[in-house]
């Protein structure tokens, strides 16, 4: 089976929604979910059968565009597809009570987001990466402004402006690459990048760093993130932190490993990542709005992944992949639970948690937060431990101190939230959670526990994946 279907089928679905609309109100929702289940099946099929393939589009590379499926890109594809499938299943039961306005458009947007993230990961042509960068960006802008309240529109405008600026820097870098190397294929560029004049190499690297820096939410360029998370609707935030950032992170480091295999900027990027983690956690300490607080926590985690990837050795990349998985699952659980709480209490201040009367949701939130914090037996622990270990092997004590300090600060506000949750004045009725929601949330928490207790299930695959990623197969 072909990996192009990951992009072609969501596009086909998006273009054909007016036809599907004739078959009743629910047709779009069910077809979308069925298609995502099929893509999930496709992903596992590729994983079991081939594992590595190059998919041509129109003509053969290096002149044409191709999709490269390796173990590492397949890992990300499977992550995105399963996150999106779980999201759709969750939303199918959520929509009976509080559906989004103009639902079919919402389904088009999330499927376009899925297609673009997968395209970003699979594509091996830098201009094609730009096109997917824009598709993912535009769907994300509209999703964040979807509710059309003034705060949602404010978030959308800020997201759009930063995204547009990022895309200018990216296309400038692509233009320079084509002028000086004469190819758009990642493999060819990687071969010739070393031979460029030093100044041009520096210029291209800086432009790429600025362009992707906005999207991977790294320190000076992440001022927009908290506003976007706060203004957007809670469910959509799960997608932002579980899919969008991860796709950009993968592409950024894929390009970095290909173009600069000897780690010229490695030290700079490590310090940048550690500093952004510290800055994000310090800023998160003062927040009282739940979505904003978890936005800062997301920033901290993404910066930790950034630091690990920037170390540019196999063990650190394996750790980064562990954190990526754990963070996606945990953030999904948190935002899904917060969406239920928001629907009931209609407030997202952290004091809301005091009046939360649902033992189930409290346990889910607690498990996810403990995993984010990196407590043993939860999924976040493995990744954090591996990062610290590989940092210690490199002898970078200041970075280790910064990460531990950041984790301590993070612990302060998580325990504050936990304190709110478990000292509640149970005056409200018990918040009812439907069985479908309960199943999905319990599944997510179980996943965190399984990864945390039995990391050896994944570690071999992740180790091979990280070797492939560092080896720069394109």
């Amino acid at each position: 089976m072909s990996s192009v279907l990951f992009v072609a089928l969501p596009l086909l679905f998006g273009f054909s929604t007016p036809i599907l609309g004739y078959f009743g109100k629910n047709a779009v929702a069910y077809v979308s979910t069925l298609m995502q289940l099929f893509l999930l099946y496709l992903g596992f099929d590729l994983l079991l059968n081939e594992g590595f393939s190059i998919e041509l589009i129109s003509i053969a590379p290096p002149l044409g565009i191709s999709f490269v499926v390796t173990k590492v890109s397949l890992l990300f594809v499977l992550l995105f597809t399963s996150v999106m499938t779980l999201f759709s299943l969750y939303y199918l039961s959520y929509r009976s009570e509080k559906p989004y306005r103009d639902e079919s458009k919402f389904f088009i947007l999330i499927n376009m987001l899925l297609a673009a993230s997968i395209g970003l990961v699979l594509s091996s042509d830098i201009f094609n990466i730009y096109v997917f960068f824009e598709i993912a960006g535009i769907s994300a802008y509209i999703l964040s402004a979807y509710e059309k309240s003034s705060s949602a529109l404010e978030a959308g405008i800020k997201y759009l402006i930063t995204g547009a600026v990022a895309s200018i820097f990216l296309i400038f870098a692509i233009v320079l690459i084509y002028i000086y190397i004469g190819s758009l294929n990642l493999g060819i560029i990687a071969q010739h990048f070393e031979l460029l004049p030093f100044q041009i190499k520096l210029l291209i690297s800086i432009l790429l760093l600025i362009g992707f820096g906005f999207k991977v939410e790294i320190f000076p360029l992440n001022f927009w993130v908290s506003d976007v998370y706060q203004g957007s609707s809670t469910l959509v935030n799960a997608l932002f932190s579980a899919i969008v950032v991860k796709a950009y992170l993968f592409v950024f480091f894929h390009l970095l490993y290909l173009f600069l295999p000897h780690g010229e900027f490695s030290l700079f990027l490590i310090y940048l990542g550690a500093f952004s983690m510290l800055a994000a956690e310090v800023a998160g300490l003062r927040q009282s709005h739940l979505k904003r607080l978890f936005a800062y926590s997301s920033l901290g985690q993404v910066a930790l992944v950034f630091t690990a990837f920037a170390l540019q050795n196999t063990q650190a990349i394996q750790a980064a992949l562990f954190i990526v998985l754990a963070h996606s699952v945990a953030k999904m659980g948190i935002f899904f639970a917060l969406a239920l709480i928001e629907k009931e209490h209609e407030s997202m201040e952290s004091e809301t948690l005091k009046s939360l009367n649902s033992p189930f949701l409290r346990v889910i939130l607690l498990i996810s937060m403990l995993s984010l914090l990196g407590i043993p037996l939860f999924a976040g622990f493995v990744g954090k431990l591996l990062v610290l270990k590989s940092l210690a092997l490199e002898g970078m004590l200041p970075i280790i101190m910064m990460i531990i300090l950041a984790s301590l600060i993070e612990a302060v506000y998580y325990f504050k939230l936990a304190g709110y949750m478990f000292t509640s004045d149970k005056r409200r009725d018990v918040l009812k959670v439907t069985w479908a929601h309960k199943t999905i949330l319990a599944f997510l928490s179980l996943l965190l526990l399984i990864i945390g207790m039995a990391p050896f299930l994944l570690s071999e695959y992740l180790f091979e994946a990280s070797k492939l990623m560092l080896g720069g197969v394109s």
Partner: protein
Amino acid sequence: MSIKRSLSTLTLSGFTLSALLILSFINILLQNVATNIERAGDGLLKLNSSEGVANVVTTVVVYFRGFDTLGEIAVLFIASLGVGLMLERNTECTIKVQSNFMLQSASKLLFPIIIIFGLYVMIYGHLSPGGGFQGGVLVASAVLLLLISNKDLEVPHAVISALETLAGVSYVLIGLMGLLLSDVFLFNFLSPNIADFGLLLSGGIIPIVYIIVGIKVGSEMGFIVQNLLKRSDDV
């Protein structure tokens, strides 16, 4: 006087920052002049004589890098969807002022010219300069002219939607046909005949896809224009 006032700290720092950045850009670019190396475009030019049509840019846009064009159409589609989502309320409000006589008579004269030119550019996009995007935008601008000259006119939403759906679906289906017939997405399964080079019917799927692109772009642009126009008076 007000020049002094407007020279605030912000202006000065913005000026200095961007000037420094640009001066270093100019410096680097002037010191490293691009050499005449073999670029991917030269390879595509050679490939074009066996697989393409007369206008090489069309071959590149529609076939060699056709996947980008599919993505680009998706971008347009999402953007017009977003514009529709943002500006959809009170669709019944229209332009209040009737346009003047000059505009009405001129639009009657100009509309057929523009639309014929647009269709020509769209259909002959693989032989002469032009193509689906340009033709689609021309057709949309003709529709815009009609819309501003006649306040009662409204292009039926169902027609635009049907055209847009048809074009988008058939583009992806052509791609999937290639996948089905020869395991390559967007493959030119109509096998272009070199003897037909430069004729209207040449290049296999290339002219078909470019006309589809034109229809899609025209309908999306018409949709965006109509949405922005219908809302312009009450802001």
